[in-house]
């Protein structure tokens, strides 16, 4: 290997990147853009469920006290009061509310006469996930109210309730259960994977397309020199994107970083090497920039978004799909990033993932060189 030749290729590549505002923009602006969109737009938290209330028993103080429990909860937002079903229909159809609470006329009368009072909850089930969660919130408000009523009536009868379970939950690592803390590390991994594979595959496909690759092959440049030479500039861009990602995560989204920056750099370098090699592998198969960029996007974006645990928890997937996720490098990287950001994990609990990333990097890099050699160099 000849370092002068490697550097000749790298510096040529730097000049070309500098002169091509589109790929430079792609490399530097897209990450910020993606982080903003995902960071602000994609919140998995469900609170302030828009709700309409029809209180048919409006004259009663008891009913109003009961409804206060919903009003004061941060999980509901009462957007409207109404006095007919037509309105409720209309509001749900136009997605103005997700649920409707209908208090029947004799609600307070039932309660005062120590009978079970009916309460109607109408939920828009078209988004089943959100509907389930909203119903759970409503149920817990009612249960709490019931428990209070029970205690009250025991007290009136002179009993003291005993033998109850008091669940005290404490959430670790993300006390506020802020889903942004969970998403942002995933976005960083997605950005690195996509940018790295996309940029390298395009820059090599461009050389095939323009005939400059054939000229290069006729020179004494060796495949590994060519690949490493191409790596250096895109590695730099990848690390720049990583820094932007970590900076935005901390400053803009307030995600804590509790692990070691040294580990972050080492493990990111492994992931980046694999992703860059994957880009080279793709471009050796697809020799036009168009096809290369499509293949690169397809082979990185979809698995990284859907199968890495970025948004959808892996333990929820069917067994077969779970098995597939073991082949997705972003799975390991995301888990490492979350470990570093939120848990402050050290290598002793992440070495499993680290080994997989190392394998990914080695396999992809040697495949890229082999493919290149076969093609001619």
């Amino acid at each position, binding site marked *: 290997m000849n370092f002068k030749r490697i550097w000749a290729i790298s510096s040529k590549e730097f000049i070309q990147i500098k*002169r091509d505002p589109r790929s430079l923009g792609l490399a530097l602006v897209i990450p910020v853009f993606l982080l903003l969109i995902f960071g602000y737009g994609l919140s998995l938290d469900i609170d302030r469920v828009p709700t309409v209330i029809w209180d048919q028993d409006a004259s009663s103080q008891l009913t109003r006290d009961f409804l206060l429990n919903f009003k004061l909860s941060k999980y509901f937002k009462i957007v409207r009061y109404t006095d007919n079903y037509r309105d409720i229909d209309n509001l749900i159809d136009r997605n103005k509310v997700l649920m409707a609470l209908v208090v029947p006329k004799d609600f307070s009368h039932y309660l005062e006469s120590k009978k079970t009072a009916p309460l109607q909850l109408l939920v828009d089930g078209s988004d089943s996930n959100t509907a389930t969660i909203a119903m759970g919130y409503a149920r817990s408000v009612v249960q709490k109210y019931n428990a209070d009523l029970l205690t009250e009536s025991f007290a009136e009868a002179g009993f003291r309730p005993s033998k109850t379970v008091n669940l005290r939950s404490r959430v670790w690592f993300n006390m506020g259960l802020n889903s942004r803390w969970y998403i942002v590390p995933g976005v960083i991994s997605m950005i690195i994977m996509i940018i790295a594979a996309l940029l390298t595959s395009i820059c090599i496909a461009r050389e095939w397309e323009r005939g400059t690759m054939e000229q290069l092959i*006729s020179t*004494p*440049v060796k495949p590994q020199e060519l690949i490493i030479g191409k790596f250096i500039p895109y590695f730099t861009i990848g690390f720049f994107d990583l820094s932007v990602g970590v900076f935005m995560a901390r400053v803009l989204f307030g995600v804590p970083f509790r692990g070691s920056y040294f580990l972050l750099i080492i493990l990111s370098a492994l992931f980046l090497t694999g992703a860059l090699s994957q880009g080279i592998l793709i471009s050796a198969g697809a020799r036009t920039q168009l096809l290369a960029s499509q293949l690169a996007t397809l082979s990185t974006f979809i698995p990284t978004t859907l199968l890495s645990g970025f948004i959808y928890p892996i333990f929820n997937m069917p067994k077969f799909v779970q098995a597939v996720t073991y082949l997705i490098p972003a799975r390991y990287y995301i888990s490492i990033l979350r470990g570093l950001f939120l848990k402050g994990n050290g290598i002793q609990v992440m070495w499993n993932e680290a080994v997989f990333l190392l394998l990914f990097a080695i396999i992809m890099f040697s495949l890229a060189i082999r493919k290149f050699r076969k093609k001619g160099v």
Partner: protein
Amino acid sequence: MIMNPAAQSSNIAVKVEDLEKKFGDFIAVNQINFEVKQGEIFGFLGPNGAGKSTTIRMLCGIYTPTSGKGTVGGFDIVKEQHNIKQHIGYMSQKFSLYDDLTVEENIDFYSRIYNIPKNEREKRKDETIRLAGIEEFRKRLTRTLSGGWKQRLALGCAIIHQPGIIFLDEPTSGVDPITRLNFWNIIKDMAAQGRTIFVTTHYMDEAQNCDRLMMIYHGTMIAMGTPEEMKTSIMKNEILEIVMPEAEKWMEKVSQLDSVKETALFGVNIHAVVYDSGKATQDIKDFFRQQGINDYSVNRIKASLEDVFVSLIETYDEEHKDK
């Protein structure tokens, strides 16, 4: 020029034996044999798709041959591709410089790729720029140069390491006649310095400039020799040139005469390929007398390379009709 010691003593720059390249079932190059001597301008002629570029790529270490063997500068084309690459210059058919780099950046890139020592680089750069005749465009993006200049710059970059053997794949396709002339002057100068030039072309007037020619068709060698030999001993038939008004109207009729093998239009004149010029001249005169035509002349001329090429290809097609 650095070469393998074996090659230096034998004076052979390129030698191939039964060289073959297949792509699946398709035979691109079919067991060809030839030798190129040091300092020779060796022309490789053939229509598009004949196997010229494939052969060049095998010699430059870009393709590995399917079978057969060969040496370039004394190095084996299968086992020593890396050594070959240090001693050859290759200019592909397609323009192959980076058009988003400036003229100087392109030259610098190739000097560094070829590991030219730092103290030599500026000198070589000036030489290359002078060769391409673009002193005033040093800082211009290569994209903005016109075709002829680009082509000369590409040549300059391909030979920046002063290789002993230079492969040029259709170096003059798509450039203007003046640039072509200029290009051939450069090629002749390089040959005069003792370098070997291996050039493909389909311009017959250019082929005339070569020391030796090889014609290839459907991957098979159909003729080899100096341009002079091609036109005399290799060409079995003779050529009659018929000058007459409305020649295109009579070409077909003349070709139907028994003593005429075939005819072709060259400019406004008919070239008739004949087996025996004496008998054919008589037949043509008789035919025109019958038709009442007096305003014509028939003369035996020396075959041009184009005549030879057309005739050889037709003979080949004739022989391979059934296959």
